[in-house]
């Protein structure tokens, strides 16, 4: 297998550079109420890495002082960070779009029940993990009972207008394979998700994203444990599609880790590969002009974002 860097060298691009910088993605901690088998940050209730108030404040300062359009918040479960509401409120006051990547089940945790309604009030776009439309596929990856809670959460969101009111904030669902195979095409599976969720539960949503599992974090541990790591990497590399390179996430965002370190994407963040933009390693050093022209730090896990139709 060629390295990803070699593969990029064979394309007309030669190397991967940032194209624009409209999205500030921030991982506000690895703590999660779930411990999904495919999680690339190995999130779980036992993780202690959570963004503190001061760093969250710096993120908002950077967001509002620079021409970002969107704050994209991920985790762990972002709702488990007490700074989340303040961050969203300040971002919305600055007229920035806000997207939160939620696992849905967290809405049933104590003191977090009001989040769906509050998200709607703040016009937060939601990207919700639902690895499959059937119970067995979801519970196998995310834990027993997860599917039923996810369905209940989606019904609540629908009741608030998410997925049902096209003029309101969006509700996107995320499929990911429940094993070491690649994701199907988005349009094919989206139609099936719509039909199945509508027929079974009357649930609607805005769009479906199909993502491949990244060979890092807990999913990498599974691949190594079962002797399938090399086979999966070969599969990703064989499916390399140069057409994905213009839309690949890292060329349009910068990612801030829970401790304020700057990365090219959330996957590099999980691996600890900081951005290569000179000395700009921390949010304190944030320099929009330097970051918008930076070279992206790549490694073989990047094959996960360029396989097939792309996955980020």
């Amino acid at each position, binding site marked *: 297998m060629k390295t990803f860097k070699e593969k990029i060298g064979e394309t007309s691009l030669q190397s991967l550079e940032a194209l624009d910088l409209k999205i500030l993605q921030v991982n506000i901690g690895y703590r999660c109420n779930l411990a999904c088998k495919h999680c690339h940050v190995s999130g779980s209730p036992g993780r202690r890495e959570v963004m503190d108030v001061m760093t969250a404040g710096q993120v908002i300062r950077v967001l509002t002082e620079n021409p970002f359009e969107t704050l994209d918040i991920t985790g762990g479960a972002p709702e488990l960070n007490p700074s989340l509401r303040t961050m969203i409120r300040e971002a919305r006051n600055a007229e920035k779009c806000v997207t939160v990547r939620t696992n849905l089940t967290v809405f049933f945790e104590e003191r977090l029940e009001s989040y769906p309604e509050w998200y709607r009030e703040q016009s937060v776009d939601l990207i919700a993990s639902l690895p499959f439309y*059937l119970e067995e*596929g979801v519970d196998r990856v995310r834990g027993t009972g997860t599917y039923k809670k996810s369905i209940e959460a989606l019904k609540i969101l629908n009741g608030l207008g998410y997925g049902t009111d096209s003029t309101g904030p969006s509700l996107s669902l995320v499929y990911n394979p429940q*094993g070491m*195979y690649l*994701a*199907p095409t988005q349009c094919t599976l989206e139609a*099936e998700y719509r039909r199945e969720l509508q027929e079974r539960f009357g649930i609607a949503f805005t769009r479906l994203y199909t993502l491949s599992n990244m060979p890092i974090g807990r999913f990498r541990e599974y691949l190594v444990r079962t002797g399938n790591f090399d086979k999966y990497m070969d599969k990703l590399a064989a499916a390399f599609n140069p057409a994905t390179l213009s839309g690949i996430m890292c060329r349009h965002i910068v990612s801030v880790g829970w401790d304020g370190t700057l990365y090219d994407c959330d996957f590099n963040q999980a691996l600890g590969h900081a951005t290569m933009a000179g000395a700009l390693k921390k949010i304190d050093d944030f320099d929009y002009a330097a970051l918008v022209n930076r070279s992206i730090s790549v490694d073989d896990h990047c094959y996960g974002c360029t396989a097939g139709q792309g996955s980020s």
Partner: protein
Amino acid sequence: MTEYYKAEDLEKFGDVGKHNPELFKKFIDWYTSSLEPGKLSKREKVLIGVGVAHVIQCPYCIDAYTKSCLEEGMSLEHITEAVHVASAVRGGASLIHTLQAHNAIDRNSL
């Protein structure tokens, strides 16, 4: 059976072509083309594949087409339905031969 069927042999399918590459290439071209989406979608084609794989009881094909079904976003529900269709056709093919027995009885009876 394990001495006959080894999962890793599936990856060595290309070895079949060693002693007649020309014919094997023709097979691979045909095989690949037949699975390309046409009037039927890729999903429909791999579902046919998984059904046939079970009826011909080929462990390699079952392995390969089950994975293909997963990669097309299908579940065990889809696969099970396809296998029932293929098995029912196979069952029907056996049952229809009862008419051969009926005819044989007619031919051999007073």
